[in-house]
């Protein structure tokens, strides 16, 4: 680790200076305010299929984005050209564009007093993700796949085992004097086995482990075995008749529900009336058992950052407390539009105005094990996979393709597929009758197992 430090620091200083210099060039060119972002990253990925290396990819890239204001007008540009000429074009392009956009009374940089960086080490960057020699990285992928294929003779094919590693470096500066930067690392293992039933029908499923450091990664064997278990339990899946029964979302599919809720509490959706939760602040929108939190400061978190896309420190925000909508997720712009304060959720890509992104967004867990939740159900559906995009945030209407396992007298029985599960998010939030004790952060969004009553299943 020590051998790399000096080199990295050198690069670091260069890019910080470049960000600050780009801003001052923008101000000289006529901008009244500006912010610059520089992103650089590198990626390594390998896929091993049927024991042979299928792909090996390794590369790095970087780019710079600039957003300028001329009074209340704004525009932005980006480029991968870091030469003097490239930066000049970036600056003149942004200023020229800004002159033709409209005055927006709500546009502008954040209140300077709100800028800042979460102190301390958030443990987002570990050099060890790149420390493995190439042969060993390939070996991780190979081990994950072979562990999956060794589980059962019905697994005779595979979409491979993979190992990915990457690091990213972000520098952000604005004309109010803010300069911040951070690095993040991530590595992951995945296995996608394919099994065939006696009737010839194939099924596949996948499992993965992802972490910011190699030391937190599950073993390739554990990943492979779980992938095999999930694949095998789909064999022989059938369609069922349309029915209305309790539905249990496993923690993976429940997480996708949280993603919908995150979109619906985003300030962008709220001020546009594009969410069924618009105007519901302070109202009871879910059962009393529902407490939903966003926390951008959790060490090693997949949604953690020391500051948001506008240089505001990230924080912990209770979004729903015991069923009451306590806060939206906001950036500076949407906060101004709604007469509220930013929650430090600005998301900044290379280009355009800041959007909104949750940090680590999770539902407080309950006491029951997933097994106990299933054991209480006479007839129901345990959902393990969802497909498609059938969620309307404006109305809350929800209708997605699903597959899973039928529950009969408290036990998981046969696999089910080619059905849909439908309802309305408004009702679903009030009909979460059980919450599991299995909260685990496998991404920036995390949910325990959930039982939701009153949903319609469409099949035969």
């Amino acid at each position, binding site marked *: 680790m020590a051998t790399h430090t000096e080199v990295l620091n050198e690069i670091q200083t260069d890019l910080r200076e470049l960000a600050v210099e780009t801003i001052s060039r923008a101000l000289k060119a006529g901008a009244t305010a500006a912010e610059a972002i520089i992103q650089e990253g590198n990626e390594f990925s390998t896929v091993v299929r049927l024991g042979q290396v299928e792909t090996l990819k390794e590369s790095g890239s970087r780019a710079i984005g600039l957003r300028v204001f001329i009074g209340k007008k704004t525009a932005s540009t980006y480029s991968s050209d870091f030469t003097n000429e490239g930066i000049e074009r970036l600056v003149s392009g942004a200023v020229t564009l800004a002159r033709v956009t409209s005055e927006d009374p709500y546009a502008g940089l954040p209140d300077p007093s709100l800028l800042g960086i979460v102190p301390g080490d958030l443990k987002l960057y570990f050099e060890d993700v790149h420390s493995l020699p190439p042969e060993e990285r390939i070996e991780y992928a190979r081990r994950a796949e072979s562990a999956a294929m060794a589980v059962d003779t019905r697994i005779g094919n595979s979409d491979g085992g993979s190992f990915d590693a990457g690091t990213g470096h972000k520098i952000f500066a604005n004309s109010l004097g803010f300069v911040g930067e951070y690095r993040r690392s991530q590595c992951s293992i995945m296995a996608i086995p394919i099994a065939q039933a006696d009737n010839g*029908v194939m099924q596949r499923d996948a499992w993965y482990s992802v972490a910011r450091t190699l030391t937190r990664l599950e073993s390739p064997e554990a990943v492979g075995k779980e992938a095999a278990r999930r694949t095998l339990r789909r064999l022989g899946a059938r369609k069922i008749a349309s029915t209305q029964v309790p539905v249990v979302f496993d923690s993976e599919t429940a997480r996708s529900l949280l993603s919908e809720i995150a979109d619906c509490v985003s300030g962008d959706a709220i001020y546009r009336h594009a969410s069924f939760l618009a105007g519901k602040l302070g109202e009871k929108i879910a059962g009393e058992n529902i407490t939903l939190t966003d926390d951008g400061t959790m060490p090693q978190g997949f949604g953690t950052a020391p500051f948001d896309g506008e240089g505001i420190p990230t924080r912990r925000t209770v979004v729903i407390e015991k069923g009451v909508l306590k806060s939206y997720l906001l950036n500076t712009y949407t906060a101004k539009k709604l007469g509220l304060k930013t929650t430090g959720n600005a998301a900044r890509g290379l280009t355009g105005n800041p959007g909104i992104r949750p940090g680590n967004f999770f539902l407080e867990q309950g006491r029951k094990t997933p097994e106990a939740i299933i054991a209480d159900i006479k007839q129901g559906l345990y959902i393990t996979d969802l497909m498609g995009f059938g969620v309307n945030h404006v109305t809350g209407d929800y209708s*997605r393709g699903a597959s899973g396992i039928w529950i009969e007298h408290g036990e998981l029985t046969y696999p089910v597929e080619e059905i849909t599960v439908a309802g309305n998010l408004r009702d679903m939030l009030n009909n979460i009758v059980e919450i599991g004790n299995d909260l685990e952060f496998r991404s920036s969004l995390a949910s325990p197992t959930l039982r939701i009553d009153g949903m319609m299943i469409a099949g035969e």
Partner: protein
Amino acid sequence: MTGKQNLFFQKFGVTPTDLQRYLSEALSAGGDYADLYFEYLTSTNITVDESIVKSATQGISAGCGVRVLAGERTGYAYTDDLAPEKILRAARTAALIARGPAQQPVQGFKESAAHQLYQISSPSVDADIAAKLDLVMRADRAARAYDPRIVQVRGGYADELRQILVVGSDGTFATDVQPLARFTVICIAKSGENSAKGQSGGGGRVEIDYFQTEKTPETFAQEAARQTIIQLDAREAPAGEMEVVLGPGWPGILLHEAIGHGLEADFNRKGTSAFSGLIGKRVASDKCMVVDNGTLPSRRGSLNVDDEGSPTQETVLIENGILKGYLSDKLSARLMGMPSTGSGRRESYEHIPMPRMTNTYMLAGNDAPEDIIRSVKRGVYAVNFGGGQVDITNGKFVFSASEAYMIEDGHVTAPLKNCTLIGNGPDALTRVSMVGNDLQLDEGVGTCGKDGQSVPVGVGIPTLKLDSMTVGGTAR
């Protein structure tokens, strides 16, 4: 190789000798084949929101991806710096997929005749920004004028110009300049307690004049507003299997999900698709003729050459219900002993090419659309869709209707809330019992995702009747 004027030669000082050297380096460890993909992309994006121009952006990216094939193995590396030492380093990294001494020589470049599917007179990216702003403001006004219940309008104009150079160790030498433009209008309406959203858009490999003359902002704005207002009174969709009629055009996403992905050669080479081994077998009713065609002028999914430098073509996928062919890139073509169908596509220089669709559609049949509707006792008439998804291994696919109606006793009746339709790829099209005489292609908004790579595509169908499909509503 011709001395064709080329951006990468002129602006970045790349020479044919350099290209040969990079390819030799890529094959230095014994690879069978290597190629280089140079890309220079400029883009513009404008958003009008709440009747003001809230965002205008412009960007430039450039880079080169180096790929080396060795048997079934692919090595890949890229650089966003086109300096010779950076490209050589990427070539050395990609070369490591093979182990051994160099075996394949690099062939002399031969530029093959290419299609001329799109006009580039004044590339949109350079056209006056004010003219683009004007287009989007017109859409905003037209949508608001449509109905006082429209409370929010967001209009967007995006265009790009992608200049590529593809060279391969087999002598491939191809260049292309690919324009792409898209107009989008999203509306929100409120009426009492009810809210609704609607969306419309279009474009293709066209320039700004397309939106000034052929498809005006008003067309898209009125269509988005119309869909939004209809949705205000939508009732619960039914749940269960029933007759489904798909309107012409964009509902062709059915083909994209139900069969298109399943026919991409990589899945079939590996035996991981529900369609593996079904060539020559019946996968649709005999009324179904389905093609993938990358050569339609100005279409969003069209390309003069694919991202491996092969000319695009029309590929018959299903003929009279029988599965005829797969969509192939160079790798799968070589390994499967079949010709490439010009289907090797990638999102950018950072991505490995793979078999993808271009414009996928079903040819027109003989039925009048009115007769198709009239033949349905109780079913769903779906005319607009959001996205879809497929699990290619078990063939299950979904696509979500954003505008649909009940059909009762042969008449189109109440509008329905958003609902997902689900089916099984290898047998969904066997249930097609009527095929309309009204083939339409979509307006040009489709983007397809596969393995994390997005590429523009087109779809189309005539009005179609499926005797049975599962509709995922909430009403019994």
